[in-house]
């Protein structure tokens, strides 16, 4: 399996960061960066990383199962993660979540038919003082409202419409 030159360069640099013989430490960063490019942690990706780090594939699989940001199937182009933990629950996060599900017609960890959106009800994303907060992929959106969420969805849809 080959990755983009940027990703290969990133991996090469990553491997220098560990004490000699302890390159297995790169597993989780490699997985999450590779996932961005490949779209999901495919069986092929598992074998590739296992081979590169000289570990058994099971050692990769057990990590994939543990960390919640690693997924085996592709998500939407815009993966909308809505926090409903305490600070966000107290300021409208749950209402945002229910609205999002209804508006997009999907549930937790599901993808829309057109592949544009997926939704996930997440735990605290570290934006409590600017709640309610969501993430679109890695991008933060603070002080969210139902109107702003509708606007976000609208903007994405408009951007992909043929002109």
């Amino acid at each position: 399996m080959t990755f983009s030159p940027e990703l290969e360069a990133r991996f090469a640099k990553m491997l220098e960061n560990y004490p000699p013989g302890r390159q297995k430490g790169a597993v989780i960063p490699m997985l999450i960066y590779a996932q961005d490019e490949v779209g999901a942690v495919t069986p092929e990706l598992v074998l590739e990383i296992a081979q590169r780090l000289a570990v058994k594939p099971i050692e990769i699989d057990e990590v994939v199962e543990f960390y919640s940001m690693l997924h085996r199937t592709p998500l939407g182009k815009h993966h909308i993660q809505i926090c409903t933990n305490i600070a966000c629950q107290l300021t409208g996060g749950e209402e945002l979540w229910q609205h999002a599900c209804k508006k997009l017609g999907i549930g937790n960890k599901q993808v829309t038919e057109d592949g544009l959106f997926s939704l996930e009800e997440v735990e605290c994303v570290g934006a409590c003082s600017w709640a309610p907060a969501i993430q679109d992929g890695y991008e933060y959106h603070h002080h969210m409202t139902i109107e702003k969420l509708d606007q976000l969805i609208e903007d994405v849809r408009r951007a992909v419409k043929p002109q």
Partner: protein
Amino acid sequence: MEHLLHEPHPLETILLSRRFRLENSASIDTFLANEGFDGFRQALTMTPEEIVAEVKLSNLRGRGGAGFPAGMKWSFVDRKSPKPKYVVVNADESEPGTCKDRVILQYDPFRLIEGVLIAARAIGSERGWIYIRGEYRYLIEHMNAVIATAYERGWLGKNIQGSGMNFDFATQSGAGAYECGEESALLESLEGKRGNPRLKPPFPAQVGAFQCPTVLNNVETYSAAPDVILKGGQYYADLGTPRNGGTRLLCISGHVNRPGVYEVRLGMNMLQAVNELAGGVWKGRKLKAIIPGGSSCPVLTAGECDIPMDYDSLGKAGSMLGSGGMVVLDETTDMVKLLSRIMKFYAHESCGWCIPCREGTTWLKKILARLDGGIGSVNDIDTVDQIAVNMFGHTFCPLGDAAAMPTMAIVRKFRQEFEAKLQSTQVFVPEPGTRSLPVLK
């Protein structure tokens, strides 16, 4: 990047956050023009023992949650060990209510580098990592650029500023796991494994990253070190209260008019922080309760909140200063729904390693979800309390305690809300002999 700052409030004590609002605050040149690396320069003229002594004198305690004295932690590392020593920064920041390490890394990242270098000199370390939660991808890229700049300008790498000291530093991404904020689970993750905690003792100071002596502290704890050295441990200690030195960042959130991250002296009054800094409870409502330092901390009712905010006072009040994640609850807050959500969190984040946590958090989540829907008997309330009592102190790592403590506090202090939910539900009980199940009306 989202804008995270507000206008400084007159009641804040601006020490750690003093560069945040400068133009280009995150640039190394702004840093250098504003006492940047002066603490480290001074540390280079001190012996490791002197550095540790100064940090001990300052009464700087861990700002991640546990509040363990930093100087004491650093003194546990045996500098004479033939193994390499490591410095690890905990930037996992996943405790619900907490959003301060983000602010430090975004607005004054070189301060963190400076703090790490001071710790490295104190323990004789030549390599370290900053473990950043996967969701903070923008900060991982930001810190990668910061570290690259530090190398270019001779503040990392070989023979730093001609001092003879070497130090290599890199970011390490997480991938979504609250348990990886626990120090030993973080080290497991750093080694490329599942985030299960380790048996302690031995502690990371003896057996840490890659089985070598390691100092592992929170972002804010390292970030406080430059001022401890530059302005002196006694100065830092005097800002706070006895055995609780310095200032800390407080993340005020929830039902307040001005949520935000504020820097306060240890010992500031909690009600004053809510009413003055955060503008009081919103919408003209009354205060019901406060979760002082993240979801793991026992809730304090309004009547219990007139106390100084330091580790010891919060401890005496039956709670914790914790991570500084202060969540304010107004009179309309549904405490049953809140606890149910908190348990959903712990059940999800339990690493699954030990029975009392894995099974206990699952039972608590299920029973509380049911009670929140008004289904159950008053015995179930006692069951919830008993499960928490049996988890507390019996789990392999503090996550079990973190789930048990808020459970016991909310069930005991707000029991009437649980009972009211059960009484107000109408259930249609089918005829005996029929096959249908009870249904909520």
